[in-house]
């Protein structure tokens, strides 16, 4: 089936009322769970799974997919308004989205996030249709050494995010790396830093960490100063519309973020959290005035939001073309197909072209629905800020607890979020950047396992990192990046030394 024939077939499938209704249901539900802190696509999809046994496989996949990418839209809302990431992916959005809200530009930040999310998704869909073969071949060609080198580059590039002293940034990244070590070591089976707790054998729950560091810490912090900043008295349309200057500043970051997201989404096991971090780091690196970042730079909202939405779409590439789920949520979706007797695999596309194209077209329809749904909601979201603290914050804490519990039904995780929240508050008082901790936590285990795997596969030869072209490229860029930073430090030191000496 040719691409255009496929798209036409896809429209026939996706616009059929019995499928369309589930598309609407999926994206609405996705938005809601995205907005609610902690309750993620994972919990929602696993709860919906039993329902999918009773509907057609096309409708099932379209609905679950809608929840998956819909959650990416909603995730930014609480990040921007309350510095409370609805999903771990949108933690980066707090860095500049929240300062924008404090400056009274919450509406603009939300608009920027919705628009860039939409553009990111559309670019993701285009990549899924025309580049899926290429992206899938990259996914299988990427070896352990390549992953390790790429993640190291990501860590080095991103560890400068947030405006703070390098020593503090370094401390946060290292703390994140240490926390990432908690749990059973895949290679030896040894349990590390678990202090004898069975609950910690699978590591610290990412959702508990993100909610504690950002959400709970922020709530505690705000109890001190009850005066709220940046709350508009009346929300009118003008406050929501970005200026021409805003639009200009959003455009390139959105496109770059989309490209990064398309790439990382298609790599199994990396995920959209990394793509949004890297998009933010990239924008800050290439910005003419990086000091704006962390103080309400619209580029810092647009880039990451485009990236995580594009990644949510291209995450379907390995799932649909190879039958290999890139993350646990994708594995759930494939599970839904197995129940219907559809065996996921490389032949799935040929055997069920209607399903593939129906899904692809539903992505387009779903994202359009999300945009139409979310733009008018911006005004309502912003007015949420006018709810008094004493009502809003207890509600937030309840939702955080529900969300964290929903991940694996563990009361231990609720206790963990409380402890992490208290620690997060202390870190915020000392002006440490929790985003860097999260970065170390997400990238650390990936670097470690891939590094060790690469060394095992090469039978202990470290040259593997330079022999493989992909890995060698990432190593070279990393070295250049470090040399560049050192050169900058040296120049500044010399400049400072010249007048006196």
């Amino acid at each position, binding site marked *: 089936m040719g691409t255009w024939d496929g798209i036409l077939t896809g429209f026939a499938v996706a616009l059929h009322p019995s499928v369309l209704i589930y598309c609407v249901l999926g994206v609405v539900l996705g938005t809601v769970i995205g907005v609610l802190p902690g309750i993620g696509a994972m919990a929602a999809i696993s709860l919906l799974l039993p329902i999918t046994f009773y509907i057609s496989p096309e409708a099932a996949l379209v609905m679950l997919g809608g929840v998956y990418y819909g959650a990416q839209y909603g995730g930014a809302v609480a990040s921007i308004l309350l510095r409370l990431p609805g999903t771990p992916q949108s933690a980066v959005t707090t860095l500049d989205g929240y300062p924008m809200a404090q400056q009274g530009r919450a509406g603009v930040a939300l608009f920027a996030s919705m628009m860039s999310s939409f553009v990111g998704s559309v670019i993701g869909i285009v990549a899924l249709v025309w580049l899926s073969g290429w992206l899938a071949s990259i996914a299988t060609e990427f070896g352990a050494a390549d992953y390790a080198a790429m993640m190291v580059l990501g860590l080095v590039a991103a560890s400068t995010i947030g405006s703070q002293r390098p020593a503090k940034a370094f401390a946060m990244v290292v703390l994140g790396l240490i926390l990432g070590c908690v749990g059973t070591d895949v290679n030896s*089976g040894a349990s590390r830093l678990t202090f004898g707790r069975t609950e910690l*054998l*699978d590591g610290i729950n990412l959702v508990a960490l993100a909610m504690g560091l950002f959400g709970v810490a922020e709530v505690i912090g705000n109890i001190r100063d009850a005066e709220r900043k940046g709350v508009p008295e009346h929300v009118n349309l003008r406050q929501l519309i970005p200026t021409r200057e805003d639009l200009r500043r959003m455009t390139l970051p959105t496109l770059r973020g989309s490209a990064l997201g398309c790439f990382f989404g298609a790599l199994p096991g990396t995920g959209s959290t990394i793509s949004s971090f890297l998009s933010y780091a990239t924008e800050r690196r290439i910005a003419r005035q990086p000091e704006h970042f962390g103080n309400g730079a619209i580029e810092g909202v647009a880039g990451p939001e485009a990236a995580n939405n594009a990644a949510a779409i291209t995450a379907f590439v390995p799932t649909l073309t190879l039958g290999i789920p890139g993350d646990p949520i994708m594995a759930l979706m494939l599970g839904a197909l197995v129940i219907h007797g559809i065996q996921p*695999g490389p032949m799935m596309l040929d055997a069920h072209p209607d399903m593939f194209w129906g899904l692809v077209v539903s992505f387009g329809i779903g994202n359009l629905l999300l945009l139409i749904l979310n733009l008018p909601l911006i005004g309502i979201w912003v007015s949420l800020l006018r709810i008094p603290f004493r009502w809003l914050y207890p509600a937030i804490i309840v939702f955080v607890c529900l969300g964290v519990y929903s991940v694996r039904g563990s009361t231990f995780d609720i206790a963990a979020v409380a402890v992490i929240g208290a620690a997060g508050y202390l870190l915020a008082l000392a002006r440490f950047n929790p985003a860097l901790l999260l970065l170390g936590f997400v990238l650390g285990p990936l670097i470690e396992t891939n590094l060790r795997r690469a060394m095992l596969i090469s039978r202990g030869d470290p040259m593997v990192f330079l022999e493989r072209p992909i890995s060698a490229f990432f190593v070279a860029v990393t070295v250049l990046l470090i040399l560049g930073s050192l050169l900058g430090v040296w120049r500044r030191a010399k400049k400072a030394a010249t007048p006196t000496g």
Partner: protein
Amino acid sequence: MIRIHRQATLALTAGIAILAAGMASAQEWPTEPIHVYVGFPAGSSPDTLARLITDPLSQRLGQPVVVENKPGAGGVIGVQQMLAGKENYSFGSTINGPLTTSPRLVPDTSYDVAADIAPVALLATSPLVLAVSADFPADDLAGFIAAAKAEPEAVSYGSVGQGSGAHLTAELFADAAGVQMLHIPFASYAEVTTSIIGGEINSGFMAPSAAMPQAEAGKMKMLGVTSTEPFAQVPDVPVMAGNAGLPADFRAELWNAFIAPAGTDPAVIERLNAEIDEILKDPKVQQQLMTMGWQAAGGTPDDLAQRITDDTQVWGTVIDKIEAK
């Protein structure tokens, strides 16, 4: 005399009343919803399998049977939570690990399988297949073993972590075949599959349902299956037992079982075993299980107890050898 008589009558009546109450409770059970703990998240394979059993079970018992997902530590947390539940209303559906290998691999499971767990019924079994990438030089098991014998660690295999079923099965195989293979742990079967297709590693023991689609697409070859009989989902894949010099009783299977805490009323266990055995005989359930890659099992609680003992011993020996390395 009369007084004694009255006391005797009283004692007798009380005795009968207690006895009757006891019988009534066994007959009336269940009088409230039953909880089945699953040590894996909703939507995972062990969860879907449990739900295939609990749905009909609920109809047969006339009470809701609620699946409680308590994932963590390879299913161990699910068993722990079951043991903390209400007597006669708390049960578990678990994979083999927490009953056989976890006590050896997890630092402190906090339960003793023999003393704390009452077997109810074996639900389903699944073998693993030995899969290699399409361009691997050998086309059969004998060729694979010959390639692995060329030199120690000449052939690598992927698993889903130290002590996982895939790891232990591969080591059991290596021991039986007299070869030494290089173990590369991964986080998930998806990663193992990608790595084999990408040519980074040579092989892996994996679920037939995961390897089959890749084999059909010509990206993988399946060299053997670890059950003693051919497996219905991949009928053309030869059985490893007795093939290429492997012992005739070579067997490595994953399974799921229905279990209860040790203090559960024996009458309740008997009733559950009978109901589950009938559910597993339903062709529709059998077919649904096979779609997911599981062969319906069944049998008495003693059969399951025997299986636990046998497998604990087999895998214990493998773990001893791995630890000695």
